[in-house]
């Protein structure tokens, strides 16, 4: 696998929602980069801004009330934020495609799923109507939908939840994108299908050198799929590093809590471990560390000052005072 060239680089991305109640800082200074053929997993608390980050990359934030207020998104060194509509259009669905989180509402309710897949093929790959349809059926078959010719002619409401999700996947993969953003692509899939999909993704990655941003809650999937993992919390990345090292040695207290919360397949537990407390509202984050309120290690400084990312060895960063000299300590 060649990993030299950086395909996508996100620098200090800030996406805010301007509403009557104030400004919701859904994404608040996110930076990461993605190399060719690499898979970046994004995990994090629900509502921490994972989806908004990915929507921002394709400039799909609903405006108003949302707006990308700062940052750069470089695709092969071209800033997506500065592109005009025509350039943007050529990126979307072609160079970067996206699997949306909620397949039911993200699919057009009145068009057959086959058509929805075929249309981007016609557009980006200049296929004829017939060829595109054939390819669409092929894609449906690829993602494990039985009787694809028949399913292609159905509307989304006639499909099961998992099938819809696979339709989204097929749609995103149809044009062999350079970058695939997959927002919880397998949440509704049973394990056999999930395994199959992951297999396909890996295969495509190998074959085309596709890079993937993989947003999921399933740490098992992350472990299996991703080279790198970024953990987000309250609009920021709080820990980043190679997948194996993060699971073996989580640094941030939040990451730790996450791993502890997973129900284990073996051995019985009555109650699962949870992280106490709730996520701060994106409308008013605390002044200090955003996790401080729920953190058992929180020190005085954590409540007054924002921690910066700390470099912790090769490709490993964490946003926590624990790893700085400023931390006073606390058991």
């Amino acid at each position: 696998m060649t990993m030299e060239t950086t395909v996508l680089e996100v620098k200090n991305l800030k996406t805010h929602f301007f509403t009557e109640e104030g400004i919701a800082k859904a994404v608040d200074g996110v930076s990461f980069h993605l190399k060719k053929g690499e898979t970046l997993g994004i995990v994090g608390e629900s509502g921490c801004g994972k989806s908004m980050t990915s929507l921002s990359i394709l400039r799909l934030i609903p405006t108003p009330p949302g707006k990308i207020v700062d940052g750069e998104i470089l695709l092969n060194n071209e800033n997506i934020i500065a592109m005009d509509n025509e350039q943007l259009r050529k990126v979307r669905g072609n160079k970067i495609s996206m699997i949306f989180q909620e397949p039911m509402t993200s699919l057009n309710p009145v068009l057959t799923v086959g058509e929805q897949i075929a249309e981007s093929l016609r557009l980006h790959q200049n296929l004829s109507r017939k060829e595109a349809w054939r390819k669409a059926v092929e894609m449906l078959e690829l993602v494990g939908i039985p009787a694809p010719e028949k399913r292609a002619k159905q509307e989304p409401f006639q499909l099961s939840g998992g099938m819809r999700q696979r339709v989204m996947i097929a749609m995103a993969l149809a044009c062999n994108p350079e970058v695939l953003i997959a927002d919880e692509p397998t949440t509704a899939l049973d394990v056999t299908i999930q395994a199959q999909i992951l297999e396909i993704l890996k295969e495509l990655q190998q074959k085309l050198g596709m890079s993937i941003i993989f947003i999921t809650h399933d740490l098992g999937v992350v472990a299996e799929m991703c080279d790198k993992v970024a953990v987000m919390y309250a609009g920021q990345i709080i820990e980043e590093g190679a997948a194996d090292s993060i699971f073996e040695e989580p640094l941030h207290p939040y990451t730790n809590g996450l791993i502890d919360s997973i129900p284990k397949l073996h051995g019985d537990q009555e109650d699962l471990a949870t992280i106490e407390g709730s996520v701060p509202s994106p409308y008013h984050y605390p002044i200090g560390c955003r996790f401080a309120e729920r953190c058992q290690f929180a020190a005085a400084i954590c409540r007054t000052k924002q921690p910066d990312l700390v470099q912790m060895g090769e490709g490993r960063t964490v946003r926590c005072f624990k790893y700085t000299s400023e931390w006073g300590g606390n058991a």
Partner: protein
Amino acid sequence: MTLFILKRLVQIVPVIFGVTLVVFLIMQMVPGDSAIVLAGEGASQETIEELRENLGLNLPLHIQYWEYIKGVVQGDLGHSIKNGNQVLDEIIVRLPITIELAVYSILITIVLGLGAGIISAIRPYSWMDFGVTIIALLGISLPSFFLGILLMYSFSINLGWLPVAGWDSPMHIILPAITLGAGGAAIVARMTRSSMLEVINQDFIRTAKAKGLKGYMIIFKHALRNALIPVITVVGLQFGSLLGGTVLIESVFAVNGLGRMIVDAIRTRDLPMVQGGVLVASMIFVFVNLFVDILYKVFNKRIDLN
């Protein structure tokens, strides 16, 4: 679907009864007497009575109605009181004219209305939108009569491009079709705009954008299709009412249509003609609305027609 259509066709029977009965009763209630109108000035009381007798207007009401319905079932809509012609013949003269005019008008309505509505919806609150809105509102509050006369004077009298009125050549269709189409276009435009705005913020439009689709494709294929139900409904209503005839424009452009026929018949209290006319008009609406319902299903499979 076939079952659905069959069911609908069966429903025509009660519609026929309902429509004829209501018209019949109302015509009895309405003041005015076809015999007096027909006898004209100076006819004596006896003559009027005699006329009434001959027209069968003295029979008890239920018998009159029964006779009529018996005829309808056999495809006989009776004779006009006014000129004695077969009602069916009178309708057959006018129906093709009305249909032709309605079809052209509705085409204009659809093209202008959808076009304007889409322009409005793409950039809501732009100057374009505002312009379209104003024109549409003028279109709706300017009585079609005025528009008709205005067009007639501009294009026929001043420019001499088109004939003033009548129904002899394809050229004659243009002005009345535009006049009739314009009013509908106004409603369609407004309806399209608002429906589109409902749709345009939904997630699947975001998906379409994410696919890199061109703007017009997003609009026409993804947004419009989902916004079409109310639009189809108004187009259907419009089309139905055009087929039922539009008296004013038929008068202005001397189009020999159903609407004028019905109104003339009402004015002369020509019951069989009114019955026949309204009967045909309601059949038209039954069919148009059947078609509209089928279109609902075509554009949104989820809609359940049964």
